[in-house]
Every structure is written in structure tokens, then in C-alpha cells.
């Protein structure tokens, strides 16, 4: 990384807080300690009906410390980076550790797993957009949405947000790592009205590099198009039908898989995929892998939140689970090795076929295209799934009309094994990247 002086200075500053905290932890008698520090600076501007509505200046920072004393764990955090406050936070964490119980599985990640040498993933693109410029872009976006269709009658506004952050992590193995990152986004939500009923929908674009954001007018037009497409929605009658999950909804579906094979769900036995390593869960043509080092990727990270090196690997091959998703604690509980997933997955990619979205509709022929899901109706212990849905009725391979106020229900295990096809319409805005997913059959409840 051709660190500018400024970046270097900031990284050194955060790393020096870590060194101070580690020193204090030793002084207070901790056997081991880990510290993470973050600093975020940002601007968000929302315009509504052509006028600026809110202008927010963000600056957040925090230092979190965890200490281990004879495998008893205590944590504390502070937003005050003064020496005194950091020492106090360390002391508080140490005090807590004198009351928690000894846990043979607790502790830092293993020395050899740490990212002693980590790559620069080019995650930092400071935009430096001014409030005036941001307002202008947001207005362009919203105007395109409002003009997108005469049935668009109201706006919830268009927003730009631009954040720059610095992350640092260090532990008493002697590891210290830090990196800068940025994230920028533009979103727009509008309201359409027809026959006295209103619908709202939105579109957004997000990227590490502001130059890769979708054009403002296009974002606005898409928001308008998506909103009017929902007008005059009908209910469906109760029946069993094929379901096509749009890429955004499909990403959520794969997200449930991630939770089910995550270490904490497994060792707590609160997953419907217990003992599933080596088991066939998906159809044999399905592959899922993690790619943490995609350059400028929204989900990319050089190391996880325990300092463990992240690496590309298969999670599902030929429908069979190759690897769980683990941090070091869960790994020790399960007698496995950490997979560098403390804090979550980094760019989970579902391999797609060569069918585009229209081909997927054609393949389904008749059924429900789901573009929105509501509610928390998922039981991770059993896999039982029942959620509110909205989307479109598809017949003869074509979208016929919008539908709403229905639910879809099934069991995640069945849904996974009954996946018929995956489209190549990947949504790259999401950290779990997949195309649309066609599931053979689910129960739809409506009238």
C-alpha cells in the first residue's frame, strides 16, 4: 500500500492505543488480551422533494478490550482514547474476569493462525464529497425517480452517505494489524399511487470506490420502476407452488445457511444442520465458496476480528458441506480449526449457472417471484420457515401482476435440497453474492 503520510499517521495512532492497552493488561496481571480499535468519519445527506432534508456529520470511535486471566474472560469498551480512559477500561475488563468462570476453550486465536503477513486489498477510496456536491447528486437521483412515472406521487427522499474508517486489531501474541477502508452509497425511495392504494420501493448502489457507484439517475429510475411495478397488487389463494427468490432475497436464504453452519449455532446445538460436515445439503451441482480477498470488495477483509488470516476456501462442493464457519472459540469447542470467520463471512459466493433472470422465469414457468420478505419467522433449531412475502405472479414464464399480503412456508433443509437452478443475475452489492434461486415448491398462504 502506498500509504500517504496521513494514513500512516492514523494507523500508527490507533496501533499505539493498542500497545498502551496491551501494556496495561500485562500490568493488571492478565494472561492474554486482545484489543480492537475503530474510527469512522462520515457525511450523510438526505434530500426530499428537491430540497435538503437532513445533513449529518458523523464521527465515531471506540476501543474494545478483552482480557483472559486463567481462561476467565472479561471485556470493556471506551470511546475516550486518553491514556487514563484506556487504562481504566483495561482495569474494568480485568476486574470482570475475576468474576467470570474458567472456560477451557476460551482465549486468543492460535499464534500460527494469525495474519502475520496480510495483503493490501485496496479498500480505501476517500471521496471527500462536500455537502453541496452530495446534495446535488441526491437531487439528480430523486428527480429522476419522481419523473420516472406519473404514478410516482411522493418521495421518501434520496440519500448519499460516505464513510471512511480505520480498523486496528492487536493481541498479546504480539500481532498488530490495521487498515483503512471506505464505503459510499446512494439510495432512493419513492411512493407510487393508483386506485387509492400506495406502494413504496427503493434502489441503492454501494461501493468502496465512489467511482464505481451506479449513476444517480439510473438509481432513481430503478427506484421508480420498482415502485410502480408493485401497484395494484393482488393476493394469491393458498396453494403449493414453485418460488423464485430474487438475488437480494436469495442472498438472505444463503444467509440462513451461514447461520446454521456457524460455530456458535453448532456447539450450542441450536442449528438444523448439526453434524452436517460431509453431508449433502444442496443439489450436487451446487458450490459455495468464500473469497475474502476480492480487491475493493465490500465484504473483503485481510484478517478477521481475532487477527486470523482470511483465505479463499470451499464451503460447499457438489452440494456437500466441506467446511463450517468458525471463530477460534467455536473451533476449539468443536475440535476443529478456526476458519477466519470471527465477525462473519467475507464475500460468500454462490457459483451460478448460465441462466439469466428471464431464463429463470421461463424455467419456473408458473409460480411466485419473491422480491420482498418480512418478519422473523425462522426457527434455526428446526429449520422451520414462515415469512411474509411480496412479489409477482409468474405464468407462461412471464411476470403477470404484483402480489402481496401472502406468506411462504417450508423447512430450510427441504428448500436447500429442492433448489432447481441458480441464475447468473448476481447482486454484487451484497457480501453474500448469489443470483436468483429457484426452489421447487413451497406452501403459499393467502386468501
Amino acid at each position, binding site marked *: 500500500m502506498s500509504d500517504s503520510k496521513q494514513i500512516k499517521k492514523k494507523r500508527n495512532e490507533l496501533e499505539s492505543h493498542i500497545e498502551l492497552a496491551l501494556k496495561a493488561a500485562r500490568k493488571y496481571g492478565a494472561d492474554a488480551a486482545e484489543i480492537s480499535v475503530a474510527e469512522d468519519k462520515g457525511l450523510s445527506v438526505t434530500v426530499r422533494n428537491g430540497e435538503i432534508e437532513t445533513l449529518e456529520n458523523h464521527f465515531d470511535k471506540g476501543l474494545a478490550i478483552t482480557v483472559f486471566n486463567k481462561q476467565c474472560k472479561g471485556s*470493556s469498551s471506551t470511546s475516550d482514547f486518553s491514556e487514563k480512559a484506556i487504562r481504566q477500561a483495561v482495569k474494568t475488563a480485568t476486574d470482570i474476569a475475576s468474576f467470570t468462570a474458567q*472456560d477451557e476453550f476460551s482465549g486468543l486465536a492460535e499464534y500460527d493462525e494469525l495474519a502475520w503477513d496480510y495483503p493490501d486489498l485496496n479498500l480505501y477510496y476517500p471521496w471527500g464529497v462536500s455537502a453541496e456536491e452530495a446534495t446535488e447528486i441526491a437531487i439528480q437521483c430523486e428527480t429522476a425517480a419522481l419523473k420516472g412515472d406519473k404514478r410516482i406521487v411522493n418521495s421518501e427522499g434520496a440519500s448519499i452517505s460516505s464513510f471512511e474508517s480505520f480498523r486496528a486489531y492487536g493481541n498479546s501474541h504480539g500481532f498488530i494489524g490495521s487498515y483503512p477502508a471506505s464505503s459510499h452509497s446512494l439510495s432512493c425511495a419513492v411512493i407510487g399511487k393508483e386506485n387509492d392504494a400506495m406502494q413504496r420501493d427503493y434502489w441503492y448502489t454501494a461501493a468502496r470506490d465512489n467511482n464505481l457507484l451506479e449513476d444517480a439517475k439510473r438509481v432513481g429510475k430503478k427506484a421508480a420502476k420498482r415502485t410502480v411495478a408493485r401497484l395494484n397488487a393482488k393476493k394469491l389463494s393458498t396453494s403449493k407452488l414453485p418460488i423464485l427468490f430474487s438475488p437480494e432475497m436469495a442472498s438472505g436464504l444463503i444467509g440462513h445457511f451461514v447461520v446454521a453452519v456457524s460455530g456458535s449455532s453448532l456447539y450450542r*446445538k441450536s442449528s438444523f444442520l448439526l453434524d452436517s460436515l460431509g453431508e449433502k445439503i444442496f443439489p450436487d451441482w451446487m458450490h459455495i465458496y468464500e473469497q475474502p480477498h476480492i480487491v475493493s470488495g465490500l465484504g473483503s477483509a485481510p484478517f478477521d476480528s481475532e487477527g486470523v488470516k482470511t483465505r479463499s476456501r470451499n464451503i460447499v462442493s457438489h452440494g456437500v458441506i466441506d467446511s463450517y464457519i468458525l471463530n477460534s472459540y467455536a473451533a476449539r469447542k468443536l475440535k476443529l480449526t478456526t476458519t477466519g470467520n470471527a465477525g462473519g463471512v467475507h464475500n460468500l459466493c454462490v457459483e451460478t449457472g448460465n441462466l439469466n433472470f428471464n431464463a429463470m422465469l421461463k424455467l419456473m414457468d408458473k409460480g411466485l417471484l419473491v422480491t420482498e420478505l418480512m418478519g422473523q*419467522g425462522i426457527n434455526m433449531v428446526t429449520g422451520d420457515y414462515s415469512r411474509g412475502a411480496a412479489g409477482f405472479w409468474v405464468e407462461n414464464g412471464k411476470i403477470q401482476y404484483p402480489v402481496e*399480503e401472502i*406468506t411462504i*412456508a417450508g423447512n430450510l433443509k427441504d428448500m436447500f435440497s429442492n433448489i432447481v437452478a441458480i441464475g447468473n443475475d448476481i447482486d454484487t452489492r451484497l457480501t453474500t453474492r448469489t443470483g436468483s434461486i429457484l426452489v421447487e415448491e413451497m*406452501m403459499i398462504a393467502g386468501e
Partner: protein
Amino acid sequence: MAKTKSTILSSTDVSEIELAKTLARVMSQGGVDAADLYFQKSHSEFWSLEDSIVKHGDFNIEQGVGVRAISGEKTGFAYSDEISIKALKSAANAARAISRQGQKHSVNALPKMHESFHLYDAVDPIDTFSAEEKVKLLESVDIEARRIDSRVTQVMVSLAGERSAILVAAADGTLASDVRPLVRLSVSVIVEANGRREQGGAGGGARVGYGYFLEEERALEYAREAVRQAVLKLDAVDAPAGAMTVVLGAGWPGVLLHEAVGHGLEGDFNRKGSSAFSGRVGERIATSECTVVDDGTLANRRGSLNVDDEGTPTQCTTLIENGILKGYLQDKLNGRLMGEASTGNGRRESYAHLPMPRMTNTYMLPGKYEHDEIIASVDRGLYAVNFAGGQVDITSGKFVFSASEAYLIENGKITSPVRGATLIGNGPDVLTKVSMVGNNLKLDEGVGTCGKEGQSVPVGVGQPSLKIDELTVGGTSV
């Protein structure tokens, strides 16, 4: 001077004169017509038990000041985690940049602060128990859950406590403070029998000290309740699918009101005309059985506040009276733009977030029917007692809430427990289908958290038993 002021400002260089000076600085920008400063000093702790041992404790400090400048419908906002004259000055300059020009408005003199901490004691829950007592409390819950049923294989218990002191100073002459304690205990268990596993959860909380959990064996009751729910599900049959009569139990099922009507009646959505309820004050939106209020003044309740986050005293606001929509929940900004007064519902997650209209404790007043009478009136339907939460689309009015404990009703009798199912309906319609309201009003146990535009705040819900003639149930069995 009052205790809150001393807590928040004492160790800083910010004096009371500085509050007036900062407000004057913000208001000196032409076109700025309202401004406020929000100081917060909070600390919180979290203890968790798993595998029968207390594995983790965490302590956090959060403090800072947010400065807001309003010009018509425009809001400028900046904040700092440092409470100092320098930080106030720089936040004031950033916030007031929202306005370029216009008439200058004056600042009302700040009154002497008078405090009325009457809804809950200004205790620091964290100090009410020693660390040993907290550990013991968590362990007692684990022991109880495992004691009462041998099918329990995992117990997770968490204890959270916080104290948040706030101070609001506004250019309209508001000077108010509050000290808000909040505790919560949650239990989650896993049971296993005949190769089937199920989960159950329970918990409670209030604006009190930790002693609350020992009174009336509350903590142990949560353990028993979590086990009861999990075990019940072991024998559950598939939930039915389709439109049918639904009876909702008293208490936590009041989530229905929160999602179906509460959010849609928040002032911001109605000022913008984006709610399915916009422009409908005075219209019938429910059967005459239904009267719904939002009440921030209930003693010790999780959703209650002495003053909201704009310094306005909370109140009991009637949203629906005998089926007629009476009004909206307002903060200062939306109230002013709609020509109404704030209803004391301006809330924010922290100093780093902007306030907006939010619910406090939302519930339906009791009706005239016995609970048993309501069940007996249903030939075939669903009796839903516990919910995992809900969600609403304000604009289309569609809402869902997910039943975690429900039973079939057959021929006027409660029969088999069913697996979890989502219920979906249309907010503006659902209360027009309420044909019976029970006389058994109950409020929830104090665990509700409401999310809106990325901000979380503690809330309460409640209701008596209700019969809804038709609602879509998202099960799997026809």
C-alpha cells in the same frame, strides 16, 4: 444544582451559560428556527451464561453531545463523543450550516432546571448487585431450567443493565434532564427428546434495579416459562395455512398494535403523507370495541420516560378511541410542521442519532368479554399466545408478526400446539375485523426493542385477548 447536570457536565468545562451560548451560536445563522443540544452519559454492562458457567462480562461507557439545527423542514446535525466547549463549538458550526440565509430567530432564556424523576428511581442498576450476586442470579436461572425438566440440554442466560443520564437544552427554552435505569434478563433453552430439538425463550425487565428479578421469583419464572415453551413445541403439529379466525392472547401479542397501527401513526410518516393512515384522523379504522393508547407515563415500564429526548414530558396519547382514529404520535419537528403539539414521543437511540417520533408503551384498553367466552366463540381458528416480533411496510400497510407459541382452536376449544407461523395482514383493515375484546388487559414482560431507520429504542406493548375474524396464517398444512 440538579444531580443529572452535575453528572453530565461536572467533570467538563461546559457550564450552564455555555448551553445558552451554544444555542445562540446555532441560532445566529439566518434561517435557523430551532436548535437543541442533547448530552448523554451512559454506562451499561452485560453478563452471559452458557454451559452452566458465566463465561463473559462486558462493560461499556457511552457519552457525548449532539447538536441539532432546524430550518423549516431541514435538519443539520453534528455530534461529538467529547463533552467540551471546543467540541460544542465545532458541532454547532457544522449543524447550523444547514441554513444559508433567512430571518434570524431568537433564543428563549433557559429556565432553572426542575427535575421530576417520578416514573422510576434514578438508580444505577449496576450498583444494585455485586458481581458475585449477578453471577449467582444467572446461575440460579440455569439451575432452575435444568432442574424442572431433564430434556433441557442447553441454557443460555444473559443479564443486561444500564444507566443513562441525559440533559436537553433547546432554543425554545427547554431545559430538562432524566436519569434512566434499565435492566433485562433473558433466558433461552434447548430441549431434546426422541431426536427432536426445540428452542424456547423468555425474559423480562424494567426501569429498576436488579432486585426486581428476585421479587416474586421473576428470574426463576422466566426459566420455567422458557422450558415450558420449548417442551410444548416438541409435540407441535404443522400450522394451518390460509385465512382464518385468529384469537390473540393478552400481553405480548400487543406487538400487533405496534406493527399494524402504531408505526403508521408516527408523525413523520404522516407529515410526509407516506403512511397508509395519512389524512385519516376522524375516520373509523377499527371496530367500536377498540381503544388504543400510547402511554409513556407508566411507572417503571421499559417503554416509559420522564421526559422524551427533546425534553418534553411524556403523556398518555389516545390513538384510536372506540374505533375512530384520534391522532398521531409527534415529536417537536413533525408536530410543528403539522400544526400540532409534541406528544412527548421524540426519541433517539443516542446523542449520535437524530430524534424522531417513536412509540413508548402502546396498548389496547380492556373490553367486555371473558377470555374463555372469546375462545368458545370460534369453530375453527388459531390461538396465538407468543410472538417472535414483527415488521410493517408503512406505505402499503402490510404487516407481519411471527407466532412462536400457538394452538389450534377446534369447536370452541384449544387443542394441539402448532409450529411457529407468520401472520400477515393489512394495518388499516385488521382492527376493523376485531369482533371481541377481552377484559384481561396485560402488558408485556419488558423485553421489547423497536427498530426504525437503524435506531433501536426500548418499548412496551400490551392488550387484552382479541378475536380477529380473519387473518392470513402462514403455515404449511392445508
